[in-house]
């Protein structure tokens, strides 16, 4: 009977393609919006992802993320280094600044000060320049996306000078890293240079980056740092979540994306529900004849579920493919740099779409189940 069910479904071309379109569109809408949302949220933690060497971030107890910082006292570094289980600890600075572009415009930037001795905090992928160049006077490295904003028509930036917070900054290279949530341009410089670039109060160190000693659990060490220093210490994974949560709770982004996702579900249910109900109604006499001939209600339900499953598989496949195509097609653009389609989203959308179609199918089949076989004689 599954074969008959599929022939009934695919033979009615208009409704068949209507159902496939409905599911594909719904999948695309939900998948694309959920992917954009997830990637935007992950951008909140881009600064944490960029620092792979450190597995513990130490900060002021009131700090909420890489973009919501408070300065630590200058003694913080030594206090963290003094905690048993800490292999090493280095200072890290993240502050906002403004740069004057060659065209004279002002651009808001994020200044990241990495450890002077080890350059811990500098992303590993350089597309121009050498790590040693950062030891030159007033040297900065620019992220690739920010570079295109400041020097839109330039291929290379090394040797060019900028005015960063009214101070001379020398571009010595470019760093390939994903942009953060707030700043469009990121400058990497040594911690000591960063203190010069960023005006402010006596205390300007925003984070201490640390690594747990071999064999020690970073969560245990983070708890030990908190207990001994009174600062907030988070493992890398926990700090990623903190950053995402901060953006999620302090902006209307989840609500707006949520509305679109709900809209996708509503559109899917509406199109599929209506079309499927029409399809069943158009075939009511045929289903009635099948019941009279000797197909049980269970057999009818199995037929409709087969039809639902087929629509879901084809529609979801098409929609997921279009979502992947969208992400792939836009990944070259700066505003979508680093965006990817997480498997979890595909699985989640699949569960949602399949449940939606199956429930719609079961809803539509009610009229067949209510139909008396004798009705075909009337």
């Amino acid at each position: 009977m599954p074969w008959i069910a599929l022939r009934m479904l695919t033979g009615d071309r208009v409704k068949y393609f209507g159902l496939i379109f409905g599911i594909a569109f719904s999948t695309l809408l939900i998948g694309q919006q959920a992917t954009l949302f997830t990637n935007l949220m992950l951008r909140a933690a881009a600064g944490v992802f960029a620092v792979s060497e450190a597995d513990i971030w130490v900060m002021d107890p009131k700090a909420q993320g890489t973009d919501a910082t408070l300065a630590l006292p200058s003694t913080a570094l030594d206090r963290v280094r003094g905690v048993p289980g800490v292999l090493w600890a280095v200072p890290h600075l993240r502050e906002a600044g403004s740069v004057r572009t060659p065209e004279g415009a002002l651009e808001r930037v994020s200044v990241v000060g990495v450890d002077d001795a080890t350059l811990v905090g500098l992303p590993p992928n350089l597309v121009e320049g050498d790590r040693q160049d950062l030891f030159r006077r007033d040297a900065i490295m620019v992220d690739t996306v920010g570079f295109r904003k400041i020097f839109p028509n330039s291929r290379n930036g090394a040797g060019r000078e900028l005015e960063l917070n009214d101070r001379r900054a020398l571009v010595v290279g470019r760093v390939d890293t994903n942009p953060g949530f707030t700043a469009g341009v990121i400058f990497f410089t040594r911690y000591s240079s960063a203190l010069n670039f960023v005006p402010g109060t006596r205390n300007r160190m925003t984070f201490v980056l640390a690594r747990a000693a071999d064999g020690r659990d970073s969560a245990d060490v983070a708890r030990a740092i908190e207990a001994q220093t009174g600062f907030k210490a988070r493992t890398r994974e926990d700090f990623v979540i903190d950053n995402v949560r901060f953006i999620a709770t302090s902006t209307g982004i989840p609500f707006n994306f949520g509305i679109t996702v709900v809209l996708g579900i509503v559109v899917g249910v509406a199109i599929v529900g209506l079309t499927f109900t029409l399809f069943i109604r158009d075939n009511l006499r045929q289903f009635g004849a099948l019941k009279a001939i000797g197909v049980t209600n269970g057999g009818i339900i199995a037929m409709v579920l087969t039809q639902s499953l087929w629509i879901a598989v084809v529609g979801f496949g098409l929609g997921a493919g279009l979502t992947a195509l969208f992400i792939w097609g836009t990944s070259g653009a700066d505003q979508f740099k680093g965006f990817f389609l997480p498997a979890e989203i595909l699985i989640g959308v699949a569960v949602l779409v399949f449940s939606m179609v199956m429930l719609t199918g079961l809803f539509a089949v009610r009229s067949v189940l209510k139909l008396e076989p004798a009705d075909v004689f009337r």
Partner: protein
Amino acid sequence: MTVAIAIEGVRRSFGEGDMRVEVLRGISTEIELGKLTYLVGESGSGKTTLISIIAGILFPDAGTVNLFGTDIYTLPGNDLVRFRLANIGFVFQQYNLLPTLTAAENAAVPLIAAGVKRREAVERGATVLERLGLGMMSHRLPRQLSGGQQQRVAIARALVHAPRLVVCDEPTAALDAASGMRVMELLRDVALSPERAVLIVTHDNRIFSLADRIIGIEDGRITHDGAHAPEHQREGGAHAPEQC
């Protein structure tokens, strides 16, 4: 004479309270194997209700229906559905073919429902169509066939699983006189056998001459039972049936 169907005291009504209408008022009769039996009567006489009850698709309010030794309405759950699938072939007034299946595939539906492999079922469907003179049409969709051809596909579907009872509801109602007569002659030639009973509901008096037995129903009761149609239904010559 071997009895295929024995019904005893069958009653059936529809509606409730003041709207209650008693359609069958205690019908009892026996129908034999190897005979073409007609149930005739005016619209509303109860013949469709009776054939539905005999075919196991409408429960009676009272009485028993015994098909080939089985009291069918005592069968539990899906056993009645399976009994129908194994023993009864249906021909509907409006054919009720699946529009997206070919003629051979439509004819094969009862076999597929019974679990026969698709290829074998379709081959057997095509064989029955061949016997009904539609061998060349077996790959066509219903919309590519005339009304008479569609009804022959429906007859093939009713016969493909070799049922012991074939019930037909106004099989000529949607056909012109010539097509209707051809369909009935085919039904008589192909469907009728010593191991099978064929029961036809009709009020098309053009085809009465083909019946072995005609049972007349009026107001929910059997009012005629014989080899010929009741007098008043024979009068006036052939007339086209009402289109239902």
